[in-house]
């Protein structure tokens, strides 16, 4: 469904992504793990068209979308939940959600279907329904993350890019959010590309994973294999260090 071929992205002179290739099948949940500065967020932003690649190719649903502007990417069906949530704090929950459907208002598909999608978001996250008139900035971190996901869903995407949805949240809230992602895949067949620091939780949810280091993919495979991989364990799962040491 989505295929990145030899992507190279630069920030000025900094070579942030070096020949990155990856792919996602329809309905798959794939996770990108890696340390800070490995290029996880850059991959998402390259797909979204926010920081376009300087070489390589992004292919989505058999179409080359490498150099499309961000709004065209959203139109094709890829929505991003950006890092640090980035909900619009001075706007109400409802306004935030309506902004998610920004492009759909123009496409004359009718407000009825947009409102139906909003109801769907409210069934996924009942907490948002209680707070629909509240300003987004006055909500807790977990609620803001739910709103950010709901907002991305309002674009009715085929594929969802999530950038560290667990950042700064209580473990219980993280669980709740991951459950919703699972449910999205089951009910809507949404394809999900998940960037996570919380590698363990991400690998448990995902079908496959890619491990990044300084802009390169160094490892890829089914999520359960990566969970058992000694190198991944040592570097990213923060466990069994003692085991390795004593061996």
């Amino acid at each position: 469904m989505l295929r990145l071929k030899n992507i190279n992205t630069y920030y000025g002179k900094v070579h942030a992504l070096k020949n990155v290739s990856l792919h996602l099948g329809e309905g798959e949940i794939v996770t990108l793990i890696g340390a800070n500065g490995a290029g996880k967020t850059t991959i998402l932003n390259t797909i979204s068209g926010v920081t376009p690649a300087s070489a390589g190719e992004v292919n989505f649903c058999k179409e080359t979308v490498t150099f499309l502007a961000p709004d065209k990417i959203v139109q094709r069906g890829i929505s991003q939940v950006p890092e640090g949530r980035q909900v619009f704090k001075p706007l109400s929950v409802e306004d935030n959600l309506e902004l998610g459907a920004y492009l759909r208002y123009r496409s004359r598909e009718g407000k009825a279907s947009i409102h139906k999608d909003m109801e769907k978001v409210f069934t996924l996250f009942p907490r948002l329904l209680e707070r629909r008139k509240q300003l987004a900035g006055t909500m807790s971190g977990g609620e803001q993350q739910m709103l950010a996901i709901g907002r991305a869903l309002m674009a009715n995407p085929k594929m969802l890019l999530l950038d560290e949805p667990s950042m700064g949240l209580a473990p219980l809230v993280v669980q709740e959010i991951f459950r919703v992602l699972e449910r999205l895949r089951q009910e809507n067949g949404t394809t999900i590309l998940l960037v996570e620091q919380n590698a363990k939780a991400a690998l448990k949810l995902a079908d496959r994973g890619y491990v990044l280091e300084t802009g390169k993919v160094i490892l890829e495979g089914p999520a359960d294999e990566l969970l058992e991989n000694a190198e991944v364990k040592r570097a990213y799962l923060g466990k069994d260090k003692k085991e390795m040491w004593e061996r």
Partner: protein
Amino acid sequence: MKRDLLLFIAFALLIMVAPHFFHGGYLMNVLVFVGINTMLAIALNLLLGYAGQISLGHAGFFGLGAYISGVLTTTYALNPWSAMPLAALVVGCLAYLIGFPILKLKGHYLAMATLGLGIIIYIVFNETVDLTGGPSGLSGIPNLEVAGVVFDSDVKNYYLIWGVTLAVMLFSLNLANSRIGRALRAVHDSEVAAQVLGVNSRVLKVQIFALSAVISSLAGSLYAHTMTFVSPASFGFNFSIEVLTMVVIGGLGSIYGSFLGAALLTLLPEFLRGANDYDIIIYGALLMIMVMFMPGGLVRGIPALYRKIFKQKGEGDNA
């Protein structure tokens, strides 16, 4: 939504009956300026308060509207009613073209770029003496005329200017409450987040910049046709700052706030005239006090103040 409409109708009625209490005279002339400044403040507020993009060059667009209207109707003897939209079109296109490179800048850099733009326009007014009359100005600009009625008195001008101002207000209120208004506030808050939702922030910023310039140009044309005389001094850097002050004092992101800010900053110097040489000091001190105690602007500060006084009174009664 209905409440908003009622509020607007009440406001419009108030504006329309206001002249009956003043019986013409000098104050009418000042109120005409309140109308023009309200338009300018709204124009800048759409850009600054909603989209979060600063401009220190709006006096330039205001001046361009005034001068293009002025030159076309005097030197080229064009009808004012054709000159005004022509001026707006030219200024809009200019802003659109300049907007693309300029609005890639952010914060201080955008402020510097728009400041430069305003200064360049000001210099052009001064130096193209053959066209604009240079520093001594351009006179003999005709008044507007509708079906034989010439807008040549303060009362007639009041209705003309406020008619247009109310239209601009209604348009802006609708825009602010629309999907576009939401997108503008989204760009203000987080450009990346707005982009990944499909808001084409680059184009949207340029469009609102151009719209803002068009409204400013319209205000400028109306200024030229009501004053019948323009000179570069009215369109300098100081005036850009004054409009900015109106927006901030009135309340960022509020259309009615722009009216309050424009009204206050236009009327205050007139009322302070009695204080002779001290007027500037009082004016400055009042602005400082207002910014300190009403950081959200008059439109949010006045209701808060009212609540405070009202509440204190209630407590006093209980005691």
